[in-house]
C-alpha cells in the first residue's frame, strides 16, 4: 500500500500563552511512499518526525493537507479504520496481560462480521509470534521479557491484524547497542517477509542508514532531503543534511572561491568549475545554487583527507587516535568551524604524520560547497590542483 502525503501541515498553539504565533511542527510535507518499502524518518528531536508518524497513524489530525493510503483518503479516519499497526517507543505492552493476550488484544476488538472465534484468534496470534520468533514466550508477562523480546511482542501485536501500514516510533532507542544491531536486522527481515509498507522514526542516523530503503531527513518541521541512504550521505542537499549524517561528522570550514579555486584561508585546496550538466531551477535538476566567486561554507567528510608532505591544506597536529579498524587524525585549522578537524585515514598513510604540523590533500569526491548564507548546496565539479 503506497502512502501519499499531500502538503501535510501541523500547527500547535504555543505552550507559552504570551506568544500568539503557532508552533509549526510539520510544514507542508509532500511525499509519496512507495508500496512495500521501509522508510526512515530521520531528524534531531523536535523536528516533527514523530508528529508526522502520528498523523499517518491517525492519533493526530493534520491542520491542513491530506493523507492517502493507496487511493483512499484517510485524512479524517480514526486510527482503527485506517488499518495501521503501530509500535510505540515504550512498546506499550499491557503489563497485566500475558504475551499471548497482548497479541490477541487487537483482534478481540473486532466487531460484527469481522468477529473472530477464540481459536482463530489464537492461531493468528501464534502465527504472528512465530514470525517474530517469540512463540516460546506466549505465557510470560511482559515484565519477564528482555527489551528485545518486548520489542518483538510489540511488533507481533502491531502485525497481527495484517495492517496496510506498519509504523514504528523510535523502535530501537530502548535497546542496548548489541541488541540494537540484531533488532534492526530483525525489523528489516520482518518487513521483507510481510511486504508491509513501513515507516519508522529515529534520531539515530546509523539506524536509518542501515535498514531504510529511503531516508527522509527533517529539520524544524521541514523536509530537507528524501533519498536512498547512501545518496543522502554522498550527495547532501544542504549543510544541515551534510552535518547531520556521518560519524565522525563532516568537517566544516569557512572559505572562499576566487577565480575557480577554492581557498581555505591562504591555502588553495581545489579547483572548482560550474557543473555543465546542472542548471539552476531546471525541471528534474537537484536543488542548489550555481558556483560564483565569494565566501562559501566548505564541508569535507572525514575520509576525504590524505595526509601528504606537500598537501595543500596546512594544519596543526593535535593527536593520532587508533581505534581498532579506524585511525583518525585530530588536527587544528583556524578556519574550521570549531577550530579543530577530525579525519579518518588508512594506517599506511600514517608514516607521513609526525611533528607539529600535518598537511592534507583533499579528495574531490568528498568535498562539498554550501552557500555561505543559506547553507544550500553549491553545484560544481572539482578537480585537484595538481
Amino acid at each position, binding site marked *: 500500500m503506497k502512502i501519499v502525503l499531500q502538503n501535510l501541515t501541523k500547527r500547535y498553539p504555543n505552550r507559552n500563552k504570551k506568544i500568539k504565533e503557532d508552533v509549526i511542527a510539520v510544514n507542508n510535507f509532500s511525499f509519496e511512499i512507495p508500496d512495500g518499502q521501509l522508510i526512515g524518518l530521520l531528524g534531531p528531536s523536535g523536528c516533527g518526525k514523530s508528529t508526522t508518524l502520528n498523523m499517518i497513524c491517525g492519533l493526530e489530525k493534520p491542520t491542513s493537507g491530506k493523507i492517502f493510503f493507496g487511493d483512499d483518503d484517510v485524512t479524517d479516519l480514526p486510527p*482503527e479504520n485506517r488499518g495501521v499497526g*503501530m509500535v510505540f517507543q515504550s512498546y*506499550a505492552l*499491557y503489563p*497485566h496481560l500475558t504475551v499471548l493476550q497482548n497479541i490477541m*488484544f*487487537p483482534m478481540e*476488538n473486532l466487531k460484527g462480521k469481522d468477529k473472530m472465534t477464540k481459536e482463530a484468534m489464537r492461531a493468528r496470534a501464534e502465527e504472528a509470534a512465530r514470525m517474530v520468533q517469540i512463540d516460546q514466550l506466549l505465557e510470560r508477562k511482559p*515484565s519477564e521479557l528482555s527489551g528485545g523480546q518486548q520489542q518483538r511482542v510489540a511488533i507481533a501485536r502491531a502485525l497481527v491484524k495484517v495492517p496496510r501500514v506498519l509504523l514504528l516510533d523510535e523502535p530501537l532507542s530502548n535497546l542496548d547497542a548489541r541488541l540494537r544491531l540484531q533488532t534492526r536486522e530483525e525489523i528489516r527481515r520482518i518487513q521483507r517477509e510481510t511486504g508491509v509498507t513501513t515507516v519508522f522514526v529515529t534520531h539515530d542516523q546509523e539506524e536509518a542508514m542501515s535498514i531504510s530503503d529511503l531516508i527522509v531527513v527533517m529539520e524544524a518541521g521541514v523536509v530537507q532531503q528524501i533519498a536512498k541512504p547512501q545518496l543522502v550521505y554522498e550527495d547532501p542537499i544542504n549543510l544541515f543534511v551534510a552535518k547531520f549524517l556521518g560519524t565522525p561528522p563532516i568537517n566544516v570550514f569557512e572559505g572562499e572561491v576566487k577565480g575557480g579555486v577554492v581557498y581555505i584561508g591562504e591555502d588553495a585546496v581545489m579547483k572548482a568549475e560550474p557543473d555543465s550538466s546542472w542548471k539552476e531551477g531546471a525541471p528534474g535538476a537537484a536543488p542548489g545554487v550555481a558556483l560564483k566567486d565569494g565566501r562559501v561554507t566548505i564541508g569535507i567528510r572525514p575520509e576525504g583527507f590524505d595526509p601528504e608532505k606537500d598537501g595543500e591544506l596546512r594544519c596543526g597536529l593535535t593527536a593520532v587516535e587508533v581505534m581498532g579498524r579506524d585511525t583518525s587524525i585530530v588536527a587544528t585549522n583556524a578556519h574550521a568551524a570549531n577550530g579543530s578537524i577530525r579525519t579518518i585515514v588508512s594506517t599506511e598513510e600514517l608514516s607521513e604524520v609526525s611533528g607539529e604540523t600535518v598537511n592534507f590533500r583533499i579528495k574531490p569526491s568528498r568535498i562539498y560547497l554550501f552557500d555561505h548564507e543559506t547553507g544550500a548546496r553549491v553545484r560544481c565539479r572539482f578537480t585537484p590542483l595538481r
Partner: protein
Amino acid sequence: MDKNNSKAWLYLLPAMIFLGVFMIYPLFDVIIYSVEEGYNFASQTYFGIGDYNFAYVLRDTYFLQALKNTFILVIITVPLSTGIALLISVGINSITKLRDFYQTVFFLPYVTNTLAVGLVFMILFKKTPYSDGFVNLLITSLGGTAVDFIDGPYWAKMFVMCFYTVWVVLPFKILILTSALASVNPDYYKAARVDGTSKLRIFTRITLPMISPMIFYLVITGFIGAFKAYSDVVAIFGTNLNAAGMNTIVGYVYDMLYGDSGGYPSFAAAAALILFAIVLTITCINLLISDKNTHYA
C-alpha cells in the same frame, strides 16, 4: 557484621520504643484485661481468669446493635464510596478545562473538620421546633412526607450515617485515584485507540487493572476505617449513642470505659479484641483476594 547489626538496632530503637510503649504494651494489656473476670477499677482486683467478659459482651444487646450498625455501615459505604470516587476520578481525569478547580472542590471536605461537617449535616437533616431541616423541606416541597432523620426511624438514621461517611471518605479516595489514573502511561491508551478498542473495554481491560493496586489499597483501608467509625456518629447523633440505637463497636468500647455505663475496662477490652479479630479477618480475606486479582507493576 556484628557491629553493623548493633548499629542497625540502635537506629531502630526510637521507633521500637514508641511502638512498644504505645502499641505492643497496650495490646497485651488489653488481652490481659479481657480475661480478668469481675475486674474492679478502684481496688484493682479480680475474681479469676476466664472467657466471661467475651460471653457477656456477645450477649449484650447494645453490643449486638453496635455490631449490626457497624457491619451495615461497612458493607454499604466501602463499595459505594470507592465506586463513586472512581466515577468522579475518571470524570476529572477526562476533562482538561477546570480540572484543577474540580479537583479542589472535591478535596475540600478532606480539609474540613469532621465535627464541622457533622454540624452541617445536622442542619441539613435535623428537625427542630423552628424548622424541619433542609432535606425535609425538599422532600415536602416534592410532595413527600417529612422524616425525622436524626431521631426518627432506624433506616433514616442509617441513611444519614452512610451518606455522611461516604461524603467524608470521598476526597481522599478521589485524590488517590486521580493520581493513580494520571500515572497510567498514555501510550497504553494510544495503543488501544490504534487497535480500535471501545471506551468501555479500555476502561475495564486497561484502566482498571492498571489502577487495581490503588483500588485494593482503598478498599482495605476503607474497611478498616469504617470498622473503626465513631467520631462521625457522635458528630451527628450526639454522645448517647446507645439510646439512639446508632452505636458502633468503637462507640461501645468507649461507653464501657467512660460512658454512663462506664467503668468496665474488662468488657471494653473484650469488645476491642472482638473488633480486632474482625478487622484482622476481613483484611486477610481482602489481601488473599487482591493477590489473585491485582496487577503490581
